[in-house]
């Protein structure tokens, strides 16, 4: 088995979380000969654990520890304890993720400069530009096996679901229609097989055709001998010395026993709810408001993407469940164009759900039943669906706070996840729904209907990057402004949400951060 490091080995980097950010970082550091211990709250899974079964996989791998959904939205009623859909397990949400791998656009790194102040929003430019990140985008695409130029893999063939949407889109004048880019192999690549179009991408890919740190970065990091992964290890607090440098992480092991792992540096990658929660829980005399929180921005500016879902019943069967879940992307509306009545853009991504999920999510509110509801379900094989992935503006009050008295199984205060919409988000969503409807109408839909939000899968922004320490939590390297050997390595460092799915950017940032950490170590600064 893999290398084991002593608990008092203070030469290791401790990485918290093994998903897109943490898994990538562990692997990249290991390849440079930097030792790390990865603490992962969830279990380890094997490919054989992955089933083509929506509810079974949801219950098996999702993060179901108590969380409170708060804010002025329907989700507080429909999913009071499930604000977000995240994986708890080695591989993190890259087991569930659907593989859509889009780059942010250059203007999205400087949205504040582009559009100026917007009342009610806490907009800020990223302290890093597209140009600086571009080489890492290329590296990330090769690394993950993203179809397109960088990997040399062709895009997927259009599946039936996308053919329907794309035909409608063409008729309304859209031009940027593509089956990808996706981190799903169209032919064998990087020791992983080609996609079999099984259609259960969000339950985990049984074939391993989709990139996931579960079976790529994590085992490869371990194989180098420089990385030890500890599953069932929930980090509770990060400790520091009297100078304020972090030096250990206290975690609960599989038996619930407390352990303390010494650390040379700590990288937090627990996804956008757990990462700020951990920092807030790690308050001390020196850092009374939580670690790295002199700005007061830890846990704030939570963004989830402005989303909505539209489904349409077509005159004949479509069989949307066949083939990749998010089989195609329309990017015409991703541009910045204020004439539409909102800033920021959105992508339209064709989407499918299996019958069990669709029956629940078509209308999870109390009213989701009755003759009309059942009639739509009987037309399941005639349906096509699209998901809107739009820029969600950061608002200071959206975020993660700790409950006063409720504790979870680890004895930690339960997180309250508050999210409201900016009027801009609402305008964007309405526009997206209208455009999606037009696409489906143009291709002869029998009926088109909106589907309300479900627990969010894109969670970013709660430890945001900023040029000035007063405005955010980390700098352009993901390094805490307040503590120079503490890093944030996941989606929580996003300054804005963009109109694109987050993971490719998370991976690019992690690869870049690994270079930075290695350089500073070689200069003796860490």
């Amino acid at each position, binding site marked *: 088995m893999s290398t084991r490091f002593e608990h008092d080995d203070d030469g290791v980097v401790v990485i918290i979380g093994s998903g897109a950010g943490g898994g990538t970082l562990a692997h990249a550091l290991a390849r440079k000969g930097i030792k790390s211990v990865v603490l992962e709250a969830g279990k380890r899974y094997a490919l054989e654990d992955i*089933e*083509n*079964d*929506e*509810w079974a996989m949801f219950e098996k791998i999702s993060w179901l520890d108590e969380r409170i959904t708060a804010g002025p939205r329907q989700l507080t009623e429909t999913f009071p304890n499930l604000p977000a859909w995240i994986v708890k397990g080695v591989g993190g949400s890259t087991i569930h993720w659907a593989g859509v791998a889009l780059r942010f656009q250059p203007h999205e790194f400087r949205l504040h400069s582009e559009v100026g102040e917007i009342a009610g929003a806490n907009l800020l430019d990223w302290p890093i530009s597209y140009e600086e990140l571009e080489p890492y985008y290329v590296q990330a695409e090769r690394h993950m096996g993203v179809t397109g130029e960088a990997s040399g893999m062709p895009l997927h*063939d*259009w*599946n*039936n679901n996308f*053919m*329907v949407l794309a*035909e409608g889109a063409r008729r309304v004048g859209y031009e940027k229609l593509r089956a990808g880019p996706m981190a799903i192999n169209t032919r064998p690549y990087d020791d992983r097989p080609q*996609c*079999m*179009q*099984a*259609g*259960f991408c969000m339950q985990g890919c*049984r*074939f391993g055709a989709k990139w996931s740190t579960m079976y790529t970065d994590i085992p490869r990091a371990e194989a180098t001998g420089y990385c030890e992964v500890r599953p069932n290890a929930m980090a509770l607090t990060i400790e520091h010395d009297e100078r304020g440098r972090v030096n250990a992480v206290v975690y609960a092991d599989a038996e619930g026993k407390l352990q303390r792992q010494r650390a040379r540096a700590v990288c937090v990658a627990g996804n956008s709810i757990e990462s700020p929660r951990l920092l807030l829980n790690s308050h001390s005399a020196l850092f009374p408001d939580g670690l790295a929180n002199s700005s007061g921005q830890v846990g704030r500016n939570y963004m989830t993407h402005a989303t909505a879902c539209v489904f349409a019943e*077509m*005159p*004949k*069967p*479509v*069989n949307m*469940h*066949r*083939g990749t879940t998010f089989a195609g992307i329309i990017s015409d509306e991703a541009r910045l164009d204020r004439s539409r009545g909102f800033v920021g853009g959105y992508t339209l991504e064709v989407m499918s759900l*299996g*019958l*069990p999920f*669709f*029956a*629940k999510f078509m209308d999870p509110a*109390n*009213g*989701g*039943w*009755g*003759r009309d*509801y*059942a009639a739509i*379900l*009987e037309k*399941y*094989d*005639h349906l096509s669906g699209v998901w809107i992935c739009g820029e969600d503006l950061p608002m200071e009050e959206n975020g993660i706070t700790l409950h006063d008295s409720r504790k979870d199984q680890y004895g930690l205060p339960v997180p309250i996840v508050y999210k409201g919409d900016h009027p801009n988000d609402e305008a964007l969503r309405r526009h997206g729904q209208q455009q999606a409807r037009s696409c489906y109408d143009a*291709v*002869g839909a029998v009926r088109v209907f909106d589907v309300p939000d479900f627990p969010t899968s894109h969670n970013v922004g709660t430890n945001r990057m900023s040029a000035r320490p007063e405005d955010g939590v980390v700098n352009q390297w993901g390094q805490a402004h307040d503590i120079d050997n503490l890093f944030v390595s996941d989606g929580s460092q996003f300054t804005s949400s963009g109109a694109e799915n987050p993971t490719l950017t998370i991976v690019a940032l992690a690869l870049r951060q690994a270079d930075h950490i290695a350089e500073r170590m070689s200069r003796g600064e860490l």
Partner: protein
Amino acid sequence: MPLAIGTTLSRRRFLTLTGALAAGSLALSASTLWPRWARAEPELATRLLRLGRDIYPHEAIADRYYLAPLTPLLEEQRELIAAGLDDLDRRARAAHGRDYAAVDSAAEREALLRQIEDGEFFQAVRNTLVVGLYDTPELWQAHFGYEGSSWEQGGYVGRGYNDLVIDWL
């Protein structure tokens, strides 16, 4: 299963065997496929079934597929269910002069349910059904055209993931 419920069931099952079942208005052939509790308590089962079938009406789906997912709910929250059904009958009698299940018009029954859709009883039944009924693999292909797990057959490569001809325009 809590002991108390087990005891009730066996007593009721005894009643069934002594002929209580035959007294109901049920077709015996179909009800032999019902879950045990439902065979033992045909009256309660029939009332719950009417409700389940009104929440997600699918003519062609057999009764037992509604009753099976509701079984654990009944075991865990029997009082809530029984009280909820009684309340529903009271409402039906007030509005139409008869028990809920005896109201002929589906639209009228749905209207009664709309009044209670936010209540705990209705939500418990609906939430159980929406997850349970539609997660029944035997029903998928025949009633909805959903094919379920596909990795065993190597996914849909070469099996129609990209065979659509849009000829309906």
